[in-house]
């Protein structure tokens, strides 16, 4: 089974996000970059399926040369090879990213694409579904549990939805997007890190794909929301209730 895992380089979720003083973008001077949390879960899930059924795990990123650092991390976890679609740093919207991935899918012909449900920077939650739409493949988003049946060419996915858990069955090839509780990603081992250095990473220039990437969504302005002010600390339950009454927060 061949599994393609798109991964994004994003900020470490524990870092503090600040705008540059001129508001033109995020101040990245004190930020550590990692694989997007959900994509890391996707890598882990792909590796588990490979361990179960054999095959190959290919990671793909659409970004700049710096992103090879995250591709290497995925390779150190156990992925077999990497592809970087080099954008030269130009802005590409979700639609553009999905179109690029569709092109890579057409070339690589994976049985399964596993990817994160959202990137924790843009918080858009679009690319997996867009990609499935472009390819007309079935989609199983927000995965909580994934069971592949390679002989039947099917995958059963339990999804986290409002109101509970939903189970769907898709024919392969399919797109799966991961939710937080799908698995606990492994750390790269030392031998894994050594091996990763030898694994192939191919760079493709985005221009060479011949896709129209004129963005449909443009970012006009970034701002910091006004901070919510801290209120008071009270000393006991009676004061707690009195304060809630004062704020008219109680129904009686």
């Amino acid at each position, binding site marked *: 089974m061949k599994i393609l895992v798109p991964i994004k380089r994003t900020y470490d979720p524990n870092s503090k996000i600040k705008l540059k003083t001129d508001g033109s973008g995020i101040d990245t001077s004190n930020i550590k970059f990692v694989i997007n949390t959900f994509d890391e879960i996707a890598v882990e899930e792909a590796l588990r399926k490979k361990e179960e059924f054999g095959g190959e795990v290919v990671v793909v990123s659409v970004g700049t040369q710096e992103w090879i650092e995250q591709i290497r991390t995925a390779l150190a976890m156990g992925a077999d090879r990497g592809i970087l679609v080099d954008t030269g740093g130009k802005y590409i919207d979700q639609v553009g990213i999905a179109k690029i991935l569709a092109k890579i899918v057409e070339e690589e012909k994976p049985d399964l694409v596993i990817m994160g449900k959202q990137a*924790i920077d843009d918080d858009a939650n679009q690319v997996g579904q867009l990609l499935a739409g472009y390819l007309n493949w079935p989609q199983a988003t*927000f995965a909580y549990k994934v069971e592949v049946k390679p002989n039947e060419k099917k995958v059963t996915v339990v999804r986290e939805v409002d109101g509970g858990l939903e189970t769907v069955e898709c024919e392969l090839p399919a797109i799966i997007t991961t939710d937080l509780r799908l698995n606990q990603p492994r750390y790269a081992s030392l031998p894994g890190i050594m091996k990763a250095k030898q694994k192939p990473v191919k760079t493709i220039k985005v221009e060479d794909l011949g896709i129209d990437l004129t963005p449909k969504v443009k970012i006009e302005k*970034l701002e910091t929301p006004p901070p919510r002010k*801290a209120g008071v600390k009270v000393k006991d*339950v009676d004061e707690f209730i009195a304060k809630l009454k004062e704020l008219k927060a109680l129904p009686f």
Partner: protein
Amino acid sequence: MGILTVLETRNGELKKASLSAVTCARKISEITGLKYHLVIFSPNENSLEEVSYLGAEKVFVIRGEQFQNYTAENYALAIEKIVRDNGEKYVIATATTFGKDLLPRVAAKLSAGMVSEITEIIDDKTFKRLMYAGNIIATVKLESDIKVISVRGVAFDKAGKVDSKSQIEEVKISEKYEKKRFIKLEETKSERPELTEAQIVVSVGRGIKDPENIKLAEELADVLGAAIGASRAVVDAGWLPNDFQVGQTGKTVAPQLYIAIGISGAIQHIAGMKDSKVIAAINKDPEAPIFQIADVGLVADLFQVVPELTQKLKKLKEQAGA
């Protein structure tokens, strides 16, 4: 030509969260002069009646075996057809897991661009939305001919009834997507109000220590008529089901009162509740970040103060005759 709002149903029943998207459609209708339409799948009689009085020019109704249970694939087929047949310029839905799953697929089918979870409308193509776990507000411009928009529920009021009745149009769709099958939905049953609709939310974090102790929060919630919410830590531990999670990657809530019990206040949690009218926090650590945004903070051991709080509120409620 118009604005199409996709309504969510479950077992025929309209999901109230959809009414936020209708409000968004009304606002865009005011700005653009376009009429707004609704599409609803397999509604029961009551729900169809209800949505006929939301002021839409037309309500499209879709029925059929392939729409009995939701799948993004079949729904996207139907929506694509309606949009093309009617020359719709906008497709809107509330960003529940339904809207989040469905709309990007619709956008792909229509070669449209999409903006996720808008919180504000600036003009016919400019919107505000949050990024970076709510740390950044972005103003974005959507420049495709057809515009797909998901709406953050808490940022738009639920649309109310109007007097006149919409025209109802049953749309026959014979196409069917064959490569995906709905198998089942295991619903979390609860007697309490729905998390995203409750006036009061009592939320628990890892500080509750054991699933047994969640009853402390439930007793408090029962006195207040509140919904129960949770941090990711509690859901990850399996102490509460997934759809209790409040935060960046869970639900967004904005009740009159949010009581955080044993929750540290990580940025990803705050992203889902910071628009609550009043935030109250109980935590034994005076340095917990939740106190930086709480209107009322009590530094204490929750195992002591939560039962006391429940008792005292119960008395107060009885006195008030409520």
